[in-house]
């Protein structure tokens, strides 16, 4: 899976690579010029695109890339967070939109979801340990036994599995569940309650104890 990160802020681009580097073949472009060149020369599965580049208008870049690599999924990374910008970007052919400041687990999740959507035929089932997750029907089975999860629990499970072996902060989890509303709360204890329920359901169905809690403030999907 090839990923192109178009972002003029090098530190941010590097951080993304450091987090995603094991799962994807990542390349960087720091300018409009570079982005156009690379998208003409290579094929990418997904392109992360910051619309505010020093040497070009964001929307031009989008249409350029769309022409050069129609097969690539495009996720806009933007400092502007408004419905209008979002609608505008999606209208021009972007597939998803993530506003700064985002967390790496969230970004990773979005990339995965997008790539899966692009070639959905072969990739609807995700396995994690002895758990099988069917993304199309949104069902979870443990050793052929279906378990009933609430929508929130399903979201949490999928988020953890998608960031396998990575530590996810409670705050990223909260943000994933409730979007903008999470950071209005003064604590993320509601995440803990849902994790507890999810853990109990998985355990009683005979799944391994994969969800590790780190000092009460982080979580990790660990199959070891």
């Amino acid at each position, binding site marked *: 899976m090839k990923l192109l990160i178009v972002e003029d802020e090098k530190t941010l681009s590097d*951080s993304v690579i450091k987090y995603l580097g094991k799962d994807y073949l990542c390349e960087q472009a720091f300018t409009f010029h570079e982005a156009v060149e690379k998208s003409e020369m290579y094929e990418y599965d997904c392109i992360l695109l910051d619309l505010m580049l020093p040497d070009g208008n964001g929307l031009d870049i989008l249409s350029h890339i769309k022409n050069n690599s129609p097969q690539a999924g495009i996720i806009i990374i933007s400092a502007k967070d408004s419905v209008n910008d979002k609608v505008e970007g999606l209208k021009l052919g972007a597939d998803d939109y993530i506003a700064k400041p985002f967390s*790496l687990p969230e970004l990773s999740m979005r990339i995965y979801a997008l790539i899966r959507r692009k070639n959905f035929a072969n990739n609807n089932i995700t396995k994690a340990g002895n758990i099988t997750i069917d993304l199309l029907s949104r069902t979870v089975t443990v050793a052929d036994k279906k378990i009933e999860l609430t929508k929130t629990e399903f979201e949490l499970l999928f988020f953890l599995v998608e960031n396998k072996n990575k530590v996810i902060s409670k705050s990223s989890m909260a943000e994933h*569940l409730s979007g903008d509303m999470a*950071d209005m*709360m003064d604590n993320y204890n509601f995440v803990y309650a849902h994790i507890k329920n999810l853990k109990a359901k998985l355990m009683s169905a005979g799944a391994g104890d994969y969800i590790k809690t780190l000092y009460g403030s982080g979580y990790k999907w660990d199959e070891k």
Partner: protein
Amino acid sequence: MNDFIGGKNLSYSTLRQFIVFTVIIFLLATPVFYFLTRSYYAEELMDVIKGERIAQNISSTDLEEDIMTGVMIQYAIIIVLLGLSMVITLKFITRKLWNPFNDTLTKMEGFNLEQSEIPVFEESNITEFTRLNKAVSQLISRDKTVYKTQKQFTENASHELQTPLAIVKCKMDLLMQENLNSKQFILVSEIYGIVTKMGRINKDMLMLAKMENSQFAVNKTIELSGFIRKRLPVYNDLRGRGKVIFEDKSDGFSITANESLMDSLINNLVINAIRNTVPYGEIIISATADYISISNDAKNGPLDSTNLFSRFHHTADFQHSNTGLGLSIAKAICDYHKWDLAYIFSCNKHIFTIHFK
């Protein structure tokens, strides 16, 4: 009438007008004086002269008395005419002269730094008024520029901060992947929480700045019932213990609003209620065709309503919001849509109501 005004200063123009009108009125009144003289006290004098000429005996006359009365009448008429001229000048003619001034005044009274354009004043050839208009125009355009720069600054600052915040957040995500011990991990988590909070403040400020710049279009028809119902599961997720209840009496009622602002308004008020309610307390959202109200059980007594909606206002007994901006954002959004946001305390409940008017 402007021909009377002339390109001079105010007192000169007024004096000139007054003189011109007095002359006109006196010219008009000349027949009256002629008639008065001809047929009243001068009549006797003329009789005397005529009698002299034909050497006739003059019958006794009331000459003295007639002259006195005539002079008094003449005097009275002059006073009346002068007065009339003054009244006409002040009442009708100077009103015209002062028109540009009144125009300037009206435009200044109606001026609003946030919304109005720089007003175009009526032209005048009175030097004082020209000076006034020029001074006012300069003052307003200077204020406008300062105001615009300031607004732009808030918006730009918030925008510029998003990328550094994103970098910090991503670095924290990376730091968490290192095998940290419990002390380190908890420190990192705390910083993570603070960075998240900074991101929130930044987003809120950006939203306020954009509202001040009128950058949100109010163009979406929102059906209240569906809008709230869609968000209810997330509210209940956040609530954890206790329930968020929706009492729907809106009967399919719709409002016209900006969708992202409406979203932020309801979220802010509901989360405010969640954060300030007692454990297991009920949060009730009710919607009708006139209002949406959100109520929660109070931990303490009524809130001090004076500073409730002001920015960054913190009180000990009431957690305004995580950032100190929640309720002021709600208020600003209501103002933006010309709705009314009211707070009441009743039956030991805090109740916030959005009246759609």
